[in-house]
């Protein structure tokens, strides 16, 4: 049976790892996420080129894996990443739309356009964490614990993944919310089921 071996949450100006608060600041999202990045000494200059969704996903994955050694314990193609959110990439989509709204001021940019897909955050996490396994991105109205519990269990049962990084990464204007989990087939913090996932997300 798989268990949740780590989890990290970023919302409301605070960051937690396995239930412990690790950072707090009352600045707006764009400042907050940079402060948190610096506080965690992530040292990954590419971070500053990322869109707001990828920044949130990357930092949450760093918190999640800070005490984990998945790249040593698992083959890179057996680590899965399954993420979901509500706003897809609409936050950056609106930014790209602004560049083409006016024919007299038409300046579409590849640096923005590439982030107009929600799964780019999965790609950014895969590059940073050296993960080559299955990956997918889902859209839900709101966080769906029972979907994750059944889907992640299935993926591990079918041997598509030996360990899974999964959860929620959402940015929409000034709203932001992320909650990532690591599931492994070993003793962890709590079992991989709907109740545990829901309890952690709602804390």
């Amino acid at each position, binding site marked *: 049976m798989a268990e949740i071996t780590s989890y990290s949450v970023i919302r409301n100006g605070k960051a937690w790892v396995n239930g412990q608060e690790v950072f707090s600041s009352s600045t707006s999202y764009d400042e907050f996420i940079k402060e948190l990045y610096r506080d965690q000494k992530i040292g990954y200059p590419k971070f500053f080129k990322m869109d707001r969704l990828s920044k949130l996903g990357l930092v949450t994955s760093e918190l999640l894996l800070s005490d984990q050694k998945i790249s040593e314990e698992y083959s*890179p*193609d057996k680590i899965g*990443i399954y993420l979901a959110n*509500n*706003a*897809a990439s*609409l936050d950056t*989509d*609106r930014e*790209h*739309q602004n*560049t*083409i*709204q006016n*024919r007299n001021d*038409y300046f*579409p*940019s*590849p640096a923005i*356009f*590439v982030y*107009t*897909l*929600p*799964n*780019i955050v*999965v*790609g*950014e996490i*895969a*590059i940073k964490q*050296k*993960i*080559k*396994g*299955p*990956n*997918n*991105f*889902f*859209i*839900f*109205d709101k966080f769906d614990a029972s*979907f994750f519990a*059944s889907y992640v269990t*299935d*993926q591990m*049962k*079918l041997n*598509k993944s030996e360990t899974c990084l999964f959860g929620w990464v959402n940015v929409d204007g000034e709203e932001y919310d992320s909650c990532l989990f690591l599931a492994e087939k070993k003793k962890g913090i709590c079992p991989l089921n709907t109740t545990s996932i829901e309890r952690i997300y709602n804390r």
Partner: protein
Amino acid sequence: MVSIADHSIVSPYGIGSELSFQQIKEGNSAVQLNSNSTLSPTPTYLAKIENSLFSKIKVSHHTRLESMMIRAIEDAVSKSRVDLKSEKTLLILSTTKGNIDLLEDHDYKGFNKSRSYLGALSKHIGDYFKTSNTPLVVSNACISGGCALELGSDFLQTKRYNNIVVCGGDVITEFVISGFRSFHALSEGPCAPYDKDRDGINLGEAAACVVLSSNSNSNIQLIGSATSNDSNHISGPSRTGEGLYLATLNALNQAQIDAGELDYISAHGTATNYNDEMESIAFGRAFINETPLNSYKGYIGHTLGAAGVIETILTIICLQKNVLIKSLGYMNEGTSQPLNVIETTHSSELKYALKTGSGFGGGNNALIFRKN
């Protein structure tokens, strides 16, 4: 056992898989030069659904994409005996951009602002068919369709559902044209997958629906599926073809067949320099570069979230009809690893086919189909 119970295509050719397949078999491309200045300041080669056809597709109170997806689902489900209202049926929608065209307009083309969210796409299509389960939305760039089929297959294998209806769709918008043009990824003419002079993609517009079932007498099965990430670059394919190589190997492994048993590869072949080159390297590493291969992009363009589904349907029909379709636009070898690109449409006995896709974000997907 995961079988393909039925399918449908809504494309610039019209409504119905067989209709699209016949046009493609006859060598007719849906790609045309489009000079509509509301879509792009410069004329662009596109495979776009014309207004006269769309008027037959349009479903009142629904957006362009919703209408296309509803027609594809209706057509596929009407032929199979799948009950969309059953708790044991799940509808999966795959799209890269959903109703993104609504952002172009200050009043969201008369719809509510919330309609631009993908959750609304799920709600409105689910409500139309009165599904018990909320349709699940997959948005994983150009591999969305393949990933949705893999997901459906996984759900049938773990017996969470008895039937899965997968519908992929995307519409052509100024949003997407301007973005790909800023990347210099659009071709100046009809696209030419794998050709020496290829210079980029043609965008296409379609919806396509596949019904997967664990209880069907269909002779086509989905026997292997895998997804891998290049872990290399978010917008450029891997130079070593790593993710596609791994996905292909893992899918073959699940299918329990040898690479040499594949009769046909229905590849992604976007006709960008980097993508097609990467595929040649990955297929070379997997020792399948002598297997007959084609891309359908020369006929229907790159249909983004629909690509994996529509191209899967065309692949299945090829298996059933024992025919290999010419890879339109290919003239001269243009990849560092040689590929066996299909140059003329011809009959050939087929049993196993591989369908692949690769996309932004570094994702690669491989599906293996068997005809009994």
